């Protein structure tokens, strides 16, 4: 990186030899990074490479074991986010740090509130400040609306306003595009370019190659807690970056081969589903998935996909409509009956649904088969049979662990997901429902799971893939349905679908470009 450094003034920010160890893991190992005013420096790496930890160190959320941080050439100490904010560092977190019940104004001003005398808040000045702040980026924003009522895109904007309000010089954005449509992403990029022109220094974290190539002035690649190298976008390409990121040559596109769909395995007809708060969020959805094809559902998170998947997999009772499996009506059937009929389900949030982290791996492998022989007889449990089968599954699905009796908690994210896959991809499958199957995983695990899914398809299983990652849907699906506000607005051919088109459909439900409204009534 020293080659990049022009003579003269020291960089605005410099992180030197940052090492951060957690019990049993080294998250960052001697990472050095510098940043100048008016540039966008991208930090590229796989999930779990150490990007977020590094930024948490910068933001005072984590204390490094070694290394130092310099600002304008002077060593500084950042022990808490408070210190970071004082130094002009602001961060937009991957998981929004917004408080749903508080208003937009309260969320933005929190921690640096305009005050009247006696410790009282100045609500009038607060609202005024927010309006002006919004106007500076051409955003019309209602300061008094609770943040919980805003769409994801607008929540992102509130996060950016939060950073600007604090007079930041340095802006850190951790995977800011993960939840956005291509159109929203482009809009955020516009804003970032504007901020850059105004002299902000921006750190942009991502694992998406084309994004960093588009927006960054410099790209630093991190792999397994170490810096692999730095490039300028003009000097590199996706293939090189991918290889740096993963450490070996990567096939950027999946070879999915030809599909040979036969009869309909899953038929969903006019399905209406309500969410936890009792509001109708799926309005009469119909589609079918044929045996031997991958049917992908694309959509911005919170457009009813969770509830649709819930209704198909038995976690949620549909309001009306029907679901049938190979001709048999299974509307409102519970997870156990569906499992017996040959439905495998990889849930979107494996920590919440897929696994019991405080249980041994072996017990997790029988989570939905524990109640029948050989694993139990009557009420009596058979630990030997469970252990023996667990051993076999661990080998077959390449779960990296010394023993099946270790707790699931001890596994890496990728290996945890392999346990789920080992459980759900087995048996006489008719339908496989994959909900965000690769979220947060490393490239190796992603490839493994994708290839397994294609293998099942080729074996004649119907695969329903739901993902907010548009790239994943485009790569795997034989047919793509776009879901918008609880409806399937269009079904496209997976091989010919254009990313821009799908993005537009996701964002607007149609093909005319336009900004998504500020408020959505169906926030998940």
């Amino acid at each position, binding site marked *: 990186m020293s080659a990049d450094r022009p003579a003269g003034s020291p960089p605005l920010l410099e992180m030197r030899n940052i090492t951060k160890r957690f019990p*049993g893991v080294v998250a960052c190992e001697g990472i050095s990074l510098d940043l100048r005013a008016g540039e966008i420096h991208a930090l590229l790496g796989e999930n779990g490479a150490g990007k977020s930890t590094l930024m948490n160190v910068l933001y005072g959320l984590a204390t490094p074991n070694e290394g130092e941080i310099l600002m304008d050439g002077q060593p500084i100490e950042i022990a808490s986010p408070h210190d970071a904010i004082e130094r002009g560092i602001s961060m937009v977190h991957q998981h929004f740090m917004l408080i749903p019940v508080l208003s937009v104004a309260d969320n933005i001003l929190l921690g640096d509130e305009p005050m009247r005398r006696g410790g009282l808040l100045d609500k009038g000045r607060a609202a005024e400040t927010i309006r002006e702040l919004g106007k500076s980026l051409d955003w019309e924003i209602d300061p008094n609306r609770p943040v919980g009522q805003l769409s994801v895109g607008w929540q992102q904007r509130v996060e950016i306003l939060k950073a600007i309000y604090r007079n930041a010089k340095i802006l850190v954005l951790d995977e800011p595009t993960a939840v956005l449509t291509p159109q929203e992403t482009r809009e955020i990029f516009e804003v970032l370019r504007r901020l850059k022109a105004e002299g902000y220094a921006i750190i942009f974290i991502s694992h998406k190659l084309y994004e960093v190539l588009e927006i960054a002035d410099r790209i630093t690649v991190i792999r397994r807690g170490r810096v692999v190298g730095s490039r300028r976008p003009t000097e590199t390409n996706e293939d090189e970056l991918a290889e740096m990121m993963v450490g070996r040559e990567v096939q950027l596109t999946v070879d999915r081969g030809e599909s040979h769909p036969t009869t309909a395995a899953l038929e969903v007809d006019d399905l209406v589903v309500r*969410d*936890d708060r009792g509001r109708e969020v799926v309005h009469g959805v119909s589609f079918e998935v044929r045996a031997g094809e991958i049917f992908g559902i694309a959509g911005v998170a919170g457009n009813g996909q969770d509830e649709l998947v*819930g209704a198909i997999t*038995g*976690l*949620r*009772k549909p309001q009306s409509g029907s679901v049938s499996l190979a001709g048999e009506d299974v509307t409102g059937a*519970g*997870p*156990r*009956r569906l*499992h017996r009929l040959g439905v495998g*389900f990889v*849930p979107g949030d494996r920590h*919440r*649904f*897929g*696994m*019991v*982290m*405080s*249980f041994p791996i072996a*017990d997790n492998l029988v*989570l*939905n088969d*524990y*109640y029948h022989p050989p694993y*139990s007889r009557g*009420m*009596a*449990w058979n630990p030997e049979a469970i252990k023996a089968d667990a051993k076999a599954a661990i080998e077959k699905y390449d779960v990296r662990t010394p023993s099946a009796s*270790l*707790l699931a908690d*001890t596994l890496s994210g990728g290996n945890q997901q392999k346990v789920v896959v080992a459980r759900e991809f087995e048996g006489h499958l008719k339908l496989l429902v994959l909900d965000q199957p690769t979220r947060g995983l490393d490239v190796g695990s992603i490839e493994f799971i994708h290839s397994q899914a294609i293998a099942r398809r080729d074996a004649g299983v119907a695969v329903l893939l739901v993902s907010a990652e548009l790239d994943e849907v485009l790569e795997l699906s034989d047919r793509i349905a776009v879901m918008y506000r609880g409806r399937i607005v269009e079904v496209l051919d997976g091989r010919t679908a254009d990313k821009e088109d799908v993005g537009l459909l996701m964002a607007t439900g149609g093909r005319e470009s336009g900004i998504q409204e500020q408020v959505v009534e169906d926030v998940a």
Partner: protein
Amino acid sequence: MIARVRSVALIPALSVVLALLVGAMIMILTSPLVVDSFSLTLPLEAYVAMISGAFGSLNGIVNTFANATPLLLAGLGIGIGFKGGLFNIGGPGQMVIGALVGTTVALALNDASPIVAIPAALIGGMVGGAIYGFIPGALKAFTGAHEVVVTIMLNFVAFSIISWAVSGPLIGTGVTFARTDDIQAAALPVIIGRNGHLGILVAAVAVPIVYWLLYRSTTGFEIRTTGANPDAARYAGMRPRGVIVLTMSLAGLFAGLAGIIQILGPQTGFLAASYTAPVGFEAIAVALLGRAHPVGIMFAALLFGAMQAGTNNMQILGLPPQMVDILQAVILLFITADIVVRRVFRVREQAGELVEIASVSRSYGGGGTGTAGT
């Protein structure tokens, strides 16, 4: 095996040692009020008196076991709750209702044969407790009302119920305060010593039953899965709502059994309107000290039972019996603040140590019952 027991039992054991030291300090500080001048030997005398009271004679040992019996049974109930992710503060209420129902049955069978009356009264106690556990379980499962608050409230409702029942319909003839007649046929026979009654055996049998239920049965797997992750339980095709109701009912069942055995035993023999079953609270400490494991709970109950059996001897020294309550609270304090124990005794934290209990009350706040949306 030895290493495993050591890793599980070390902190509780050391907590007890530290608590005894803290108790000694309190006794020394308050010794001017006890013996009119500061006395450094008072704690030593007190603990010697306590140990000899609990183990020094046959009756002492029997008293230890008799005192441990309700603690063990109620502690097992609370332990089952912990495994199911439920923090049952309702021990006193469940014991009271168990005692009330059981006593009603016992009084009705006062002239029957003990062979009929005793099982009937015990079953009455279990049913009463189970019903009183069922209520918070059902409320939790179907409305999300947090069991901690509901069981606290139900305790006081139970105190009102028993106060009404015993000073009204169940009041005995010619009694000097609000209590029932003496229980005759269902009174638990004494097997050994002065207080060594049949209930001790019932409690002893309950330990392996609960162990099998929790760790060797599919129902136990469902309880533990629901406790660890109710969403995963639902995903796996279990019925977390039903499991929550079952868990709370089982917890109440054992508490109710504890309550009725306390009443049927030779130490009581009748039900008073003022019966509030503080054992139900102490059983929380027992369950936590025993790390929610049936065998651990058994040892914890015996320890607490021994301390209570030793109080009579301590009172001879002029020490109020509440010293035992202080010791119990401090033991629980050190188990919770195990960092202190580790510092004092230089015990290093081991990977994979039991951490299940740390998260029992995680869902007090907004929703999070994981059973929403069917």
